[in-house]
Each structure stands twice: as structure tokens, then as C-alpha cells.
């Protein structure tokens, strides 16, 4: 495997019980890039995330991460290897301060002492622009800040690969701009990011490579604009729209 590749799926089949969702999915992601994933509802984006973090184990194929074969590795071990996830619906520890939320991740997730954990937590808060709000109770945050906190907490576990699950969903246009700025900062800080999103603007402007999934496999990968403009993607994505 190329050392520039941080993540690869090779002919992966996976699903829940007898329902197979991922169908011969293959792709490769380079270290340090922002890798966007789009596709119509039900095409297997979230299932791909679940297979990646170890919530479901593929029935066929291989998942390689950072030189390790993690196809059958459990979720906790993958977290230790540096795969950090965010929840689509933010789940902060509401009674704790913003700072404490991230401290939990850096102490328990990354295994730091509380003293070293502070440094990591403050660093994560700066990257996500929550530093000024660090002493506020997490339960009092707005939706945008909760999403930032979700990312900050994932950063607290010191991941190499960061999974963003629809972080721009439900935000206003101005807030989406903030999220895109934050992702750019994270990329500059050296994180590899894989990002599922329905907000097309983010995918075109923020990603280096864009993959469009359809029916559990990889339909098209390439330059974001090229992918967005391709006839193939238009067919699966907007196929239901009729000409007037």
C-alpha cells in the first residue's frame, strides 16, 4: 500500500443482518486531504462510516487504515488507532463546561494525564473557535457551537483521521461558511478528513476529492466540480427531477 494513502476500502460488502447495504465498495483516500462523500439518501454513506469506525464488520473485502488492516478491529481499538468520529446529532455532556467536555476526550480517549490533557483540549478548542466559550456549560451552546464542540471532542482523542457526519446540516448560510473555515483550519493543521454532507456548496468548495456513492458502491470519484457536473451523478442524484 502507498504510504500516502491513509484509508482504503477494497471491495467491501457490509450491511445489517441480511440487508446488504455496501456492495463492492472501493476507494482510496490520501493523507491530509479532505475527502467528500455525497449520494442520495439510502446509498450507504452512513453505513460506510459505521464500517469504518467498527460498529459493523464487513462480510467481504478489506478496510486498511494507516498501514493496518482494521477490517475486523473493534471500535475502541480503532479509536485508539486514531479514527475520531462526530455524531450527526451533537451529544455534548450538557452539565459540564465546554472545556471539560474536551478534557474528557483528551484524558480518556487519548490517554493523557489531566495536566497534559489540558494542553490538548485547549488546542482543540482553539482550532474549533470555541476557546472564548470554554467555561460555558455545554448545555447552553447554540447548534453551531454544539457542532463545533462535537468536532473539538473528536479532536481531543487525537485522531489522524476525522469523520464528519453532516456537520453543516441545519445551519444557516453564514454558519455554513464558519464550518467551512473551520474545516480549512483543520486541514491546515494536518488532519485527514472524510466528510459526508448534503450541503453541496461545502462539498464543491471545501473538499479535495469527491466521491459520489450510489446503491452501496462507488459511482464516481474525482475533482469536486467535475463530479458535481457529471451526467452520471446528475442521473442518480437528481434523477427524480423532470424537465418542464
Amino acid at each position, binding site marked *: 500500500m502507498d504510504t500516502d494513502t491513509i484509508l482504503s476500502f477494497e471491495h467491501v460488502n457490509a450491511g445489517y443482518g441480511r440487508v446488504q447495504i455496501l456492495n463492492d465498495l472501493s476507494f482510496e483516500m490520501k493523507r491530509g486531504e479532505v475527502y467528500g462523500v455525497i449520494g442520495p439518501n439510502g446509498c450507504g454513506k452512513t453505513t460506510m462510516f459505521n464500517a469504518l469506525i467498527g460498529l459493523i464488520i464487513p462480510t467481504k473485502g478489506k478496510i486498511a487504515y494507516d498501514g493496518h488492516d482494521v477490517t475486523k478491529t473493534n471500535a475502541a481499538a480503532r479509536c485508539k488507532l486514531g479514527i475520531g468520529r462526530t455524531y450527526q446529532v451533537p451529544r455534548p455532556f450538557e452539565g459540564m463546561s465546554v472545556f471539560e467536555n474536551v478534557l*474528557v476526550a483528551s484524558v480518556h480517549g487519548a490517554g493523557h494525564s489531566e495536566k497534559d490533557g489540558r494542553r490538548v483540549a485547549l488546542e482543540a478548542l482553539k482550532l474549533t473557535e470555541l476557546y472564548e466559550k470554554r467555561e460555558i456549560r455545554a448545555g447552553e451552546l447554540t447548534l453551531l457551537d454544539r457542532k463545533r464542540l462535537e468536532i473539538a471532542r473528536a479532536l481531543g482523542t487525537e485522531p489522524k483521521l476525522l469523520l464528519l457526519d453532516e456537520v453543516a446540516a441545519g445551519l444557516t448560510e453564514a454558519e455554513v461558511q464558519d464550518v467551512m473555515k473551520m474545516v480549512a483550519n483543520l486541514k491546515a493543521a494536518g488532519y485527514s478528513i472524510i466528510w459526508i454532507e448534503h450541503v453541496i456548496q461545502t462539498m464543491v468548495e471545501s473538499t479535495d476529492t469527491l466521491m459520489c456513492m450510489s446503491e452501496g458502491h462507488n459511482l464516481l470519484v474525482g475533482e469536486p466540480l467535475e463530479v458535481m457536473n457529471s451526467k452520471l451523478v446528475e442521473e442518480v442524484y437528481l434523477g427524480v427531477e423532470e424537465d418542464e
Partner: protein
Amino acid sequence: MKTKTLEASAHKQVRVFGGLPMLITAVVIVALLVILPLTGVLSSNTQRYLLKIFLYCCLGSMWNLMSGYTGMTSLGQQSFIGIAGYSLAVMTFTYGASYWAGFAVGGVLGAALALGLSVLLFRMRGMYFAIATWVVAEALKTFFTSWTFVKQGAGMTIKAKPYPSTTEIYMIALVLCVVSLVVIYLLLRSKIGLGLTAMRDDADAASSVGVNIFQSKLLCFVICGFFTALAGGVFYLNKGSIYPSGGFGINWTVSIVFIVIIGGIGTMGGPILGAIIYTVLEEMLASYPGYSNIILGLIAILVILFLPDGILGTLQKKFHFEILSQKRFSKE
């Protein structure tokens, strides 16, 4: 209206009453509680009230550690109390040992019971865990009612010569209360405590950032079993006799839950306040035997309806302060 208050409070920082001022206040209060009975200022009746407060405070704090932090709501605290009461009775009456030996055996058995039960109970969550703990306590009650070694339903008396005075038992209860609060405080201030506080708010999310849920639960359960048993032992030393129906009765847990809910679940100061309120109410209502439970129940319902975080919990949230806080600040 609601968003307005949220925005206004969003920039308020929580003030913490802790550190040196807290330590000094605590030392002064404890010193007063030690000196006053020795100088004879406190009558033995007052000492008896305070003794009860100390024991309830220990019991409530331990239940709070389990239910308020790890989400294990136990309805079977009476298992530990009954086991400890009987350990005390058997050691002093049957074997003629000192009550200290009784406490030691009770504490060890309490911790061992928690350890043994964890294998069985940790597979269950929420309501199932609660019911299972209760069932265990009821099973123990039935077993002790028919066990000839502990004189079946006839109960046992606790023997000691000379029998310790109220002041002596008061001192033991005070030490137990202080030690258990210090243990909980240190636990919550530790790395494990940071994870426990996260578990209090969202156990699944805590697990996803690497908190070891099983280990944390086990530790809390064993600590809780140990101290709950010790408090039960001291209580029965004060009472002098034990019966299966009382020792393993659900009333214990009812009182403990009342104390923690009234005071404020998931806060360290809540059970302390709750223990004081409960003991005062219990003494005040003692002259109305038929109505006392109805009144206590009514109070509990009103508090749950109007102050869902308990008295101290609501005050802390409203005025942005915390007593005996385990809060971490970014600058120390």
C-alpha cells in the same frame, strides 16, 4: 422568552465554592461537631438526630454516586445494610467479638456482595437493574427469615460490654460520614471522576470518547457496597437489634431516594442537604404516625414537579455556583 434567558446566561461562568475556603469551612464544621458533644453543649437527643443525619448523609451520597453519576439506580441498598447489621449481630452476639470486628466483616461482605452482584446485574440497564437489585434484597430477606443460624424471623440483638454511649456512636458516625464524603470527593476529582461526570450526562457519548464504562461502574458499585454496609452497621449498633423485615426492608431505599432527590441528584452537596431535611422532617412528623409517609410523599412529588434538579441542584443552576464541585477550569 426562553431563548432570551439562555442567551443571557450563556456568558455567565459557574462560580465554585471550593479550594482553601471550602477546606477551612469543612474543618471548622467538623471540629465543632467533634467538640460540642464532648463539652456537653449538645444533649444526647440532639446527638441522636445528628448521628442519624451523618448516617443518612453517607447512605445518600453513596446512592448518589451510583445513580447520579453512573446511571445505576439501585433499589436494593437494604441488601448491604441488612448484611452489615447481621454481621454486627453475629460477630458480637454469636462469637462475642467486638463491634469493630462486626463493622469490618460487614464492610468486607458489603463490598464482596457488590462485586458478586456486578457479574449478574451489569448486564442490565435502567429499570431492569433497579428491579433486579430489589429482587436480590427481597431474596436475602426471605433467606434470613428462614435461616436458623441468625434465629430466623425472631431477629438478633447486638451485644457489647460496655455498650457504647450515644456520644461514642455519634463519633463513629461522624468519622464514617466525613471519610465517605472525602472518598467521593477525591474520586470525582480524579481521572475516573472526570469520566463519571461525563457518564452522568451521556454514557454512550462518554464511551465513544474512550471512557471505560464497565470499570467505572464496578468501582462505584464496590465503594457504594462497602460504605453503605458500614453505615448500616453503625445504625444497628445504635439501634441494638435487627430483624430481617427491617434490615432488608425497602424503606431504607425509599428514605435514601427521598434524600437524594430532595437535595439534588448528581451534585455532591445534594445528599448532605437532603439528609438534614429528611431527618428534621422525620422527627417533626414522628407524632403523626399515620400521615407522615403521605406528607413525605407529597413533599417529594412537589419537589420533583417544581424543582426537578432538587433543592440544591436548582439553586446551583439558577445562581451559577457549585458547592464541593468537581469542576475543572482551563486555568488553575
